[in-house]
Every structure is written in structure tokens, then in C-alpha cells.
């Protein structure tokens, strides 16, 4: 509790407050624009934080994350096009409101629910993380390997439409993480003798390439469309009756979103769809979903913002990112020389609690800006894409260049941009690559360390209960869907 007070006191500093505000405002704008995702926004603006000290840089990124996940609902409601994949489920009911001329009401519901979901997740982050970090302090190499293994299998199995594709992409990510000098022996692997590859590919250019460039290529392929908002958005503060209707759904969905966010690899889009379906199942009138009802907007919006805090839980306590945005945030911390995980809690507790307080404050700002400034953000939706997308291309270039002042990183970004574009075309998600690049070194190093400790006996992974649990869970996530598919087939026959 004392730590939290220190964190809150730290955050009450004009500079931090302004940075969070700027982040949230930028995030809402990015989120409002169809085609720009939260992942892309955070990846693109990460280079801007290089010159800042760790806390400032991280807080502005948190602001962007929180803002962008919420901002996606504006376009979803007003122009029937989700601003981010996370808002795809909001289209169903949100746009029905707009068709009735009640776009403002729907945005009000979305704003309030997003804030509720976000604040729930922030509180969960604050109260659950310390215990988890404390628990993780006991982890040795065997447990860390098992955790990384578990994270990898779960990512591969939920992030793609097809399990095999997810697993194959995950393998590619792990192989990419092997490029460079082997950290334990200094042996050079897959470097082709090139000096540039001795430390492998930098994570940030790979991420910018995989997450931002495909969107640009897609808008070239499909042409850009213009969005015009005809509707005049008036009252956005929800009425008492609406509040009463949405509260139970928003609270439930906020917890659900936090939980889904904390699972490695499951992000805001999955959370929003799950929450929408759950709200429908819980509802006394499920048939009304899709016709523009309060719960239909509240559920996905509370859940997708619930993910924001949830994704930070495993990131900060275990060093395992909860979703693609958290992976970029991990990159941001690493660039500042900070290694997320239990050690961060031990050595930089003040920073950790300042981040916690920042997540809370960012959600409050999101609410205030959503209620007061929504008319401004609705204008963003109509920004011409033919100016915007090319500008993003240049930002990708400059952002990749800025990390090491090296054009090699720009080439890496462009290469992965093309790879990412074709992956998207064959329904392969890019997230497993990025998460595998983070978890790969963690898995390999700890596997080898553990085997050195056990003198080569693999039983070390099965004798520790924690490690055994993760390994069983990991095998389960891959085997279970296959078994289910087989059982279904037997039933059909």
C-alpha cells in the first residue's frame, strides 16, 4: 500500500500528467482511424521515447495503448468500421445506435464502459502483480524454461486461425531469435559472417515491419476509402438508466478482459468477442443483441480496455508479454536497460508502482477526454488516408533508423514488412513471431542452464511442481484442440 501511495505521489507531477494526457489523446486519434491499430501506434511512437527517461517514456506509451484501444470504438459506432481489431465486436450493436441517430449515446456507453474495464484491470494489476512477482522470485531456470514453453504454445495455439500455422510461425520466430552470437558460448549462428547480425535482429524494426507495413501495402492494394461522418454527436454522458443497464455487464466484462489479457498471446480483439458472447449468454434477452442495445456496446468495450492492465501483469511480473502491445512495451523497457520480471519488482519498485499509478490515471484521462473531447476525435475519422498512410511509411523508416542510427535496421523493417504482408494474406498472424523472439532466448538460455545444473537429465523439468504444471498445461493447449477435433469427427461418423 505504501508503495502505491509513493507511485500515486510520483505521478502527480505536471510533466508525467501532461505526457499521459498527450499519450491518451494521441492514442484515441490513432485508434479512431480505421487501419491504424493500437499495436501499430505504440510501435511507431516507441522511437519518440528513446530520448526520455524510463518512466516518462513508458507512461506515454501506456497512454497511447489505453487511448487507442478505446478510440477504436468511435469509428466502429459512427462509420461501421472498427478503428482497431479490438473494436470489431463493437460494430454489431454500436452502429445500430448510430443508425437510429443515437451515435452520441453509444459513444457515451463505450467511453464509460471502457473506463470501467480499464480501471478494473488497473486495480487487478496493482493488487495481483506483487504476489505473482513474489512467487516468481522462487523460479529457477527449469521453471523459467517451462514458463516460456507454456507461453509459446499458448501463443501459437490461440493467435492464428489454424493451429498448425500458428505453430509453424512460432518456430520461425524462435529461429529468428537464434540468429547472432550464442549468448552462452559466443558461437556465431546464422550470421553469414555479417557483422550486422552478430546481435541478431533488433526487435523494434521487426515489430514495426510486421505490424505497420502490411497496413500500408493493403491500402495500396485495395485503394483507400473516405469516411464521412454525417451524424452530429451531442450528449455523450450516459443517462442514469443507461448506467444501470451497463454496469453489471461492464464490470463482468472488465474482469473477463483482464483475465484474457493476462494470458500470453490473447489480446484485446479476442477479449472483446468473448465478452460479447458471454454477455449474450448471460442476458435475459439474447435475441436483442445486434439490434443496438446498451449491453452489446458495454461488453466488448469494457473487455478490450480490461486487456490493457491485464496484459501488463505477466509482462511486469514474469517478463512474458500478455499481447502484442505488451511485447512492444517490453522492448521499450529493455531499451532503457530494464528487464521486466520479479527482479524489476525487487530493484525498481518505485518505477513499477509509478507505472501502476500511470495505468490508473491514463484510464481516468481516457474517460474525461472521451466525454469532453469526443467531437474532436470524431473529426479524426475523416482524415484523408492518402496523406496519412504514406506519412506512416516514413515514420516506420525513421523509427527503425532511430534505434541504432543504422540503415540496416530500416532494411530489416522493410524486409519484415513484406514478409508480414504476405503472412497476412495467408492468414498467418504476426504476433507469434514477435512473442517468440522475446520468449525464445528466455527458453533456450534457461533450458541449457537447467540441463547444466541437472548434468543433462531432463527430469529436472518434471520434478519441480511449478515447472511440471507449466509443461503439462503447454502440452494440453496443443493436444486438447486436436483431441476435440478428433472426437467431433468420431461423433459425425
Amino acid at each position, binding site marked *: 500500500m505504501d508503495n502505491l501511495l509513493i507511485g500515486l505521489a510520483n505521478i502527480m507531477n505536471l510533466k508525467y500528467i501532461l505526457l499521459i494526457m498527450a499519450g491518451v489523446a494521441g492514442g484515441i486519434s490513432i485508434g479512431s482511424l*480505421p*487501419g491504424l*491499430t493500437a*499495436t501499430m501506434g505504440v510501435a511507431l511512437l516507441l*522511437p519518440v521515447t528513446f*530520448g526520455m527517461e524510463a518512466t516518462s517514456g513508458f507512461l506515454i506509451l501506456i497512454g497511447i495503448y489505453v487511448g487507442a484501444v478505446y478510440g477504436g470504438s468511435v469509428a466502429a459506432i459512427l462509420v*461501421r468500421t472498427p478503428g*482497431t*481489431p479490438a473494436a*470489431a465486436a463493437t460494430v454489431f450493436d454500436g452502429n445500430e445506435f448510430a443508425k437510429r441517430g443515437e451515435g452520441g449515446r453509444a459513444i457515451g456507453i463505450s467511453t464509460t464502459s471502457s473506463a470501467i474495464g480499464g480501471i478494473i484491470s488497473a486495480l487487478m494489476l496493482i493488487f495481483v502483480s506483487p504476489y505473482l512477482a513474489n512467487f516468481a522470485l522462487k523460479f529457477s531456470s527449469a521453471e523459467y524454461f517451462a514458463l516460456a514453453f507454456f507461453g509459446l504454445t499458448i501463443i501459437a495455439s490461440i493467435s492464428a486461425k*489454424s493451429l*498448425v*500455422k500458428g*505453430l*509453424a510461425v512460432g*518456430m520461425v520466430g*524462435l*529461429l529468428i531469435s537464434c540468429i547472432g552470437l550464442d549468448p552462452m*558460448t559466443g*558461437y556465431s549462428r*546464422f550470421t553469414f559472417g555479417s557483422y550486422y547480425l552478430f546481435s541478431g535482429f533488433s526487435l523494434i524494426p521487426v515489430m514495426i515491419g510486421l505490424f505497420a507495413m*502490411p497496413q*500500408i501495402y*493493403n491500402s*495500396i*492494394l*485495395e*485503394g*483507400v*476509402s473516405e469516411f464521412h461522418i454525417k451524424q452530429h454527436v451531442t450528449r455523450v454522458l450516459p443517462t442514469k438508466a443507461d448506467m444501470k443497464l451497463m454496469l453489471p455487464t461492464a464490470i463482468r466484462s472488465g474482469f473477463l478482459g483482464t483475465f484474457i489479457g493476462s494470458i500470453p498471446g490473447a*489480446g484485446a*480483439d*479476442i477479449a472483446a468477442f468473448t465478452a460479447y458472447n458471454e454477455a449474450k449468454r448471460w442476458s435475459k434477452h439474447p435475441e436483442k443483441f445486434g439490434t443496438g442495445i446498451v449491453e452489446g456496446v458495454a461488453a466488448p468495450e469494457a473487455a478490450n480496455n480490461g486487456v490493457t492492465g491485464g496484459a501488463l501483469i505477466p509482462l511486469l511480473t514474469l517478463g512474458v508479454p500478455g499481447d*502484442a502491445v505488451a511485447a512492444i512495451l517490453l522492448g521499450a523497457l529493455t531499451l532503457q536497460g530494464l528487464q521486466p520480471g520479479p527482479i524489476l519488482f525487487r530493484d525498481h519498485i518505485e518505477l513499477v508502482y509509478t507505472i501502476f499509478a500511470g495505468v490508473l490515471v491514463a484510464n481516468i484521462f481516457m474517460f474525461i477526454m472521451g466525454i469532453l473531447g469526443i467531437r474532436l476525435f470524431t473529426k479524426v475519422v475523416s482524415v484523408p*488516408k*492518402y496523406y496519412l*498512410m*504514406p*506519412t506512416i*511509411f*516514413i*515514420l516506420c523508416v525513421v523509427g527503425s533508423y*532511430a534505434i541504432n542510427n543504422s*540503415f540496416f535496421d*530500416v532494411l530489416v523493417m*522493410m524486409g519484415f514488412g*513484406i514478409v508480414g504482408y*504476405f503472412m*497476412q*494474406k*495467408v*492468414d*498467418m*498472424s*504476426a*504476433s507469434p513471431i514477435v512473442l517468440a523472439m522475446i520468449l525464445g532466448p528466455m*527458453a533456450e538460455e534457461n*533450458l541449457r542452464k537447467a*540441463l*547444466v545444473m541437472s548434468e543433462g537429465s531432463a527430469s529436472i523439468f518434471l520434478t519441480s511442481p511449478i515447472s511440471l504444471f507449466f509443461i503439462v498445461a503447454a502440452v494440453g493447449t496443443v493436444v486438447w484442440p486436436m483431441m476435440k477435433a478428433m472426437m467431433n469427427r468420431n461423433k459425425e461418423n
Partner: protein
Amino acid sequence: MEHHPLDSYTRLSRERCTMTAKRHTTKKQADLIAAGILLILGIYVSIEVSGFKKIASLDIGPAFFPKVLGGLLIVFSILLALQTVKNNNQEPVEFMNRNLWIVFIVVGIFSIVFNLIGFVFSSIMILMVLMKLMGAGTWKKTLFVSTITTLIIYGVFDYFLHVPLPWGIFEGLF
């Protein structure tokens, strides 16, 4: 996780799909190509790894991890190919069109000239091409917008973030 939220909504894209549907690759073909590339990658890794020197004192050396991964990649790519053949998905996928070819070529030129003519000029060039291809207004207008955008980005990175962007052969002129 990153779906493209726009495809089903863009009227333009739907029209183009129906226009060119005949020449399209099917999802089956696309997935088979992907599986093939992954298989080649897996085989390449396995061959490369077998050439790694053994380090006598270590059972599990630098070769172990990539060796396992390469093997698994081969297995998964074969599984993917089998699954693809079984599913036999004939839906069309549009990979490339004329504009995208132009963009890839221009991006290639950009990569080559970036270090030569520096950030500002290469950025103005590629911004103009991209903006025109996406349907922005007249050349004059795009030149203006490209220049302003480039200068703002240059200014922000150079002055505020202290990231000096290269000028190439124009170094020292400005």
C-alpha cells in the same frame, strides 16, 4: 491477431475482387506456397546446423535449440501442406496488383538512394509516389504536402529527439 478490419467494408476492394477473380490464386495454392517456403527454411536450418562445430564439454551446445526448431518446422510445414490439400479451399486471394508492384519497386529504389541523397529528398520522393498512388490530389499539392510532412518529421527527430538523419551527398549543404 492483426486482422485487417477494412477488407469486408471497402466497396472498392469488393469491386476489384470480382473484376479480377479469374486470375486469382486460391487459398489452397497460397497455403501450399507458404508450406513450401517453410519447408525449405526448415531443411536449410537443419543442414546449416549440422555443420555447427561440437563443443566437447557441452552436451547441449549452440546447435541443440535450432536443430530441434528446424526439425519441428519441417514437421509443421508438412502438416500444413496435408491440411491444405484436405481442406481444398478454393476462395481467391489477391496478393498483388499493378499499384503494389510499383510501390515495391519504389521502396526498393528508396532503399538504394536513401544513403546517397539523404533522408529529406528520398522521403519527399517516396511520399509523393505513395500519395499519388493512393489517390491524393494534384502533383503540386502532393509535392507541397510531402515537403511539409518530411520537414516536420525531420525537425522533430533532429531537434527534439536528437536523432540526426543523414543528408547523403548533400551533407553540409543545409
